[in-house]
């Protein structure tokens, strides 16, 4: 017997009923997320060291300039594959839906924290989807341009004029990625009760009801364990 999931991912389920807690991310997904997050932080710190002279001191964190130069692209490769795994788990639920437009049109209410007047949402809201697709695009751009400027292993891969464009695009994408990163972290903290989804793996029923009601409703309507999965 299978129950179609529309708004939830495999592993999402009502964990306890009194009080309601809902499991949002499995252990493996959380591990995947934190590997991605720490790699990203390492990339930002090492990349920024080369980006601006006033941040060059950050190379000290990695054991000096040459080590930073060596390590940064390797972390980039790790990030790419780690993010790829997350992407495969999450892309479907991040596809845009009709309610996203309405949610966005009422973004003021969201900022005020008055979600009562907004459409019910599945597992992700438009903001989360923006972070997801933004990061996906930027990481793709950064891996491609990063390989093009990777002196140690791909010195002559592209012509010098292309290399100039690649390094500029890489730097601009990095700035954009940092901005999205800030939005992502900020939103996770401002929306109280979110962090535990990535630490303990569960959220409270109230959180799910308030922010992702369709998702909660779907889970509530499902049998607890699902042999088909």
């Amino acid at each position: 017997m299978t129950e179609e999931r529309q708004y939830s991912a495999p592993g999402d389920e009502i964990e306890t009923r009194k009080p309601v807690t809902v499991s949002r991310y499995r252990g493996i997904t959380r591990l995947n997320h934190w590997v991605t997050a720490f790699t990203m932080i390492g990339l930002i710190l090492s990349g920024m060291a080369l980006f601006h002279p006033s941040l060059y001191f950050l190379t000290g964190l990695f054991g000096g300039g040459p080590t930073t130069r060596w390590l940064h692209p390797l972390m980039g490769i790790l990030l790419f594959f780690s993010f790829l795994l997350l992407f495969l788990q999450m892309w479907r639920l991040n596809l845009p839906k009709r309610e996203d437009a309405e949610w966005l049109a009422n973004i003021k209410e969201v900022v005020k924290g008055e979600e009562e007047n907004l459409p019910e949402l599945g597992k992700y809201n438009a903001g989360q989807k923006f972070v997801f697709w933004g990061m996906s695009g930027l990481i793709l751009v950064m891996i491609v341009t990063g390989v093009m400027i990777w002196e140690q292993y791909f010195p002559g891969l592209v012509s010098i004029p292309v290399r100039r464009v690649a390094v500029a695009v890489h730097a601009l994408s990095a700035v954009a990625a940092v901005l999205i990163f800030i939005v992502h972290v900020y939103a996770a903290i401002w929306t109280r009760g979110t962090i535990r989804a990535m630490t303990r793996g569960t959220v409270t029923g109230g959180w799910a009801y308030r922010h992702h009601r369709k998702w909660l409703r779907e889970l509530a309507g499902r049998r607890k364990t699902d042999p088909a999965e």
Partner: protein
Amino acid sequence: MTTERAPQPTTAAANPPIQPMASNLLPSDVVRASAMRDLPAPERQLTKVAKLIDVSRCIGCKACQSACIEWNDTHPDVEENVGVYENPHDLTPEMFTLMRFTEYANPETHELEWLIRKDGCMHCEDPGCLTACPAPGAIVQYSNGIVDFISDNCIGCGYCVAGCPFDIPRIHKTAHVSKKCTLCSDRVAVGQGPACAKACPTQAIVFGTKDEMIAHAEMRIEDLKERGYEKAGLYDPQGVGGTHVMYVLHHADKPSLYADLPDDPKISAVVKGWKGAAKDVGLAAMGIAAVGAMAHGALARANEVSAHDDAEAQEMVAHAAERLAVEPQEAARPQEGAP
């Protein structure tokens, strides 16, 4: 020990002083350094120097290449002969200068001309390599115009490769540092001219103050014009602020004839944008976003889950559980407004 400072060199032909002399190219003579914005103002201004390469006089003997290898103690690989005169095939981290050969069928005279150009760092007044480099002090420019790579500070990232309009720097495969012609800064520092200039048997390479070299070039150009090279001229490209390695060309109207010497070299606009506004605007944007987020996080009301939300959730789950118990198949379907 005598530690009198060496005089500034005036010509490569002069014999070196024989008594020991202290370097006359001091850290305080650095006027620009990569990724360092506020250098102390230099105490003195050295006379600008230049190396002048008279292409019309070069016989392609490569004595300069040998002298460069000798003096800098580099070890270029022995390569295969692939039927061209260039040896090695390109500049390498072990070969700072390279004779490049072009066979040019002059459409006006119907003569075959063999153009030989000694390639290597041009020691730009406005060096693209230095602009691009992210490592503080890895590339410096002295007040006499010499652009030098300081390997101890170099991280081997290769940004200088992208920055240079002349395709000069090469990153060493094992040492992971960037290498190029130093204009023999270590010789110039003790009053001697560059090794390549010293070795040249035809004086196609001469060295001295930049003014003298321009004057010398004018004489040569006059001579060439008299011999029918009407377009003879000096290559001292202003797009990079002039260079401290200059050429006398017989066809100064077409520098690219000489193995793609750039006609009008300048630091690419992409590099300028990347290393200019993009850095400060980018840094500011990230800084403001981070500080703004922290301030807003500290001051603004957070988005809290209310007791009402919890109660609603409780009810939704309990209600659904009842339905599941009563009509298992029905309840499994999506409900209420779901498409």
